[in-house]
């Protein structure tokens, strides 16, 4: 298959086109705008629909509408825009509609700047909008995965009728790497058992998240939790690097995990048994895998471009049985090799 040098944001649209997405709704925001540009250029060329909305809120509700009609649909934005979409995301989760949302994280809070960060972790992984719902969240760490995980996101969203977020950052969106194009394109069929298509077959279908009866709403909430439990059981995805005999485990996702891989290699050269545990799915979070690791003689280091948001989840998963150190940067800054290696040596020193 063809390999081409591709920008991360463009790779998202390549993944979307191969993944059977036929409607894109978006609104400009740096550093995610190239996804919008690429959709506006390519979707009409192949007979699919591109609409530029008047706001992020409009875009997510266009997603709600098109998803209701049973189509594979998506939107993309960055931190402030994702915040604005949250009401719509809650409604999508409540109405059990499939869709893909791409968040090219930038530095916050507030307007912040357009540098890369991972500070949206909590708002995306824990829900973000109101109510007892979860997004499925996948976290690419390369241009290749920007494409591949977007395809995977569409599959998961259709399978579970749930919003799926592709959580990336400004570096992944803007950087250029070789992309191996997908082998085959998905041609999805509309599920007429729930979609509203304006035909006789779907005439009786109802897309809503209102349950006036308290008991009924509680029952619906329990159903949602069961769905999330199934997702937790079946969809956890992790990439492990040099983990077999690792005593110091770096836990990191997205762009931060790239430097961790190099740090592990350098640490190994100095005789330190370091390994990288990279969650590819952030919800479901690899709780069992981390819990199992915590039963061994290991220390954890959370490497993230946020204020310990990932670290909290590591502590939860491991029941605080093992120390979890933090290596982080915020404000649009990237983590340096010195930082990670320094912390690895510090932890290794403590153990000796």
């Amino acid at each position, binding site marked *: 298959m063809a390999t081409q040098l591709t920008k991360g944001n463009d790779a998202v649209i390549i993944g979307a086109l191969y993944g059977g997405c036929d409607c894109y709704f978006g609104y*400009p925001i740096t550093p995610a*705008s190239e996804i919008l540009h690429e959709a*506006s250029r390519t979707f009409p060329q192949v007979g699919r629909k591109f609409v530029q909305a*008047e*706001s992020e809120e409009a875009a997510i509700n266009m997603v709600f509408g098109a998803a209701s009609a049973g189509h594979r649909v998506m939107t993309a934005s960055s931190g402030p825009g994702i915040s604005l979409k949250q009401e719509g995301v809650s409604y999508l989760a409540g109405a059990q509609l499939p869709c893909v949302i791409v968040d090219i994280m930038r530095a916050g809070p507030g*307007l912040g700047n357009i540098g890369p960060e991972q500070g949206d972790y909590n708002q995306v992984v824990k829900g973000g909008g109101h109510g007892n719902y979860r997004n499925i969240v996948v976290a690419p760490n390369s241009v290749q995965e920007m494409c591949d995980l977007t395809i995977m996101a569409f599959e998961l969203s259709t399978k579970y009728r749930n919003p799926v977020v592709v959580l990336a950052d400004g570096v992944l969106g803007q950087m250029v790497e070789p992309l191996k194009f997908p082998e085959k394109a998905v041609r999805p069929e509309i599920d007429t058992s729930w979609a509203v298509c304006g035909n006789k077959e779907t005439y009786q279908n109802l897309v809503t998240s209102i349950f006036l009866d308290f008991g009924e709403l509680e029952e619906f909430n329990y159903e949602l939790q069961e769905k999330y439990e199934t997702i937790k059981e079946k969809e956890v995805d992790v990439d492990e690097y040099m983990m077999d005999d690792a005593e110091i485990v770096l836990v990191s996702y997205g762009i931060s995990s790239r430097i961790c891989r190099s740090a592990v290699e350098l640490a190994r050269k100095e005789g330190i048994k370091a390994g990288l545990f990279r969650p590819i799915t952030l919800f479901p979070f690899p709780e069992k895998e981390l819990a199992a690791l915590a039963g061994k003689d290991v220390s954890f280091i959370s490497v993230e471009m946020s204020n310990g948001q990932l670290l909290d989840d590591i502590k939860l998963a491991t029941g605080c049985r093992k120390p979890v150190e933090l290596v982080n940067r915020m404000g649009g800054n990237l983590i340096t090799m010195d930082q990670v290696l320094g912390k690895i040596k510090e932890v290794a020193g403590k153990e000796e």
Partner: protein
Amino acid sequence: MKSLFTSGHRGCAGCCDAMVAKFTLMAAGEDCIVISPTGCLEVMSTPYPETSWEVPWVHSLFENAGAVASGVEAALKAMGKKGDTKVIALGGDGATIDIGMRSISGAFERGHDITYVCIDNEAYMNTGVQRSGATPFDASTTTSPAGKVSYGNPRPKKNMPAIMAAHGSPYIATTSLGYPKDMIKKIKKATEIEGPTYIHAHAPCTTGWGFDTSKTVEVAKLAVQTGLWPLYEMENGEVTKVRKIGKQKKPVEDYLKMQKRFKHLFKMEGAGEQLKLIQALADKNIEDFGLE
């Protein structure tokens, strides 16, 4: 006249935002509070140490300059101030007529004593020239690219002054960077009138439209002289004054050919018909406002 918008910002040479900001403050004077939503103006003129504002200045989210201005005005009233401090919102076309439309509508409907100045450079320049509701017919932008199947943006500009007039605003005016005295005069008048007033300033963007940095004023003048951007004032819903074009009237091609965003109209097959459609838009303005 002293400028309260100083040099040292990071605007492009010939930046329209900086010029409108400067003229706005010349009109408003020292006793004002400016609210700006996200956009080029805020990004290039406010971060330390490139701050250009010599008046109090508040940043708002992209979508809610109208609401923040309402809050500032209400707080001034709560402090017992009686209209002496002017509250001015200064936003781009995206922030004003797309995402910010709802909050401006609310502010005007409630009747807050504010002046809203829309700097209309006809696309989302800060994020890379995406189309907005103010992008003119057939302009090529990064999300309405001209190509085999498209002549560019398929829709004409949203008529925001008419929408604001429908809110019962006591004073609405269109103005242009081609005529700074006109702009200063109208903004001054707007800030002196009690109630929510609206100024729509046509502001050519050298980067987004694709013209030489020395031509901002020339391009702005041509928009007016072709009839594509009519200059008028509305008081309590009625047009009370227009700027006649008279002998200066130019064909729309004179305006369009100066800008890269319209260059496809002079190359593509069948574009002659498009030029006629654009001329028709100008002619309708000239007729509607009696500009001849």
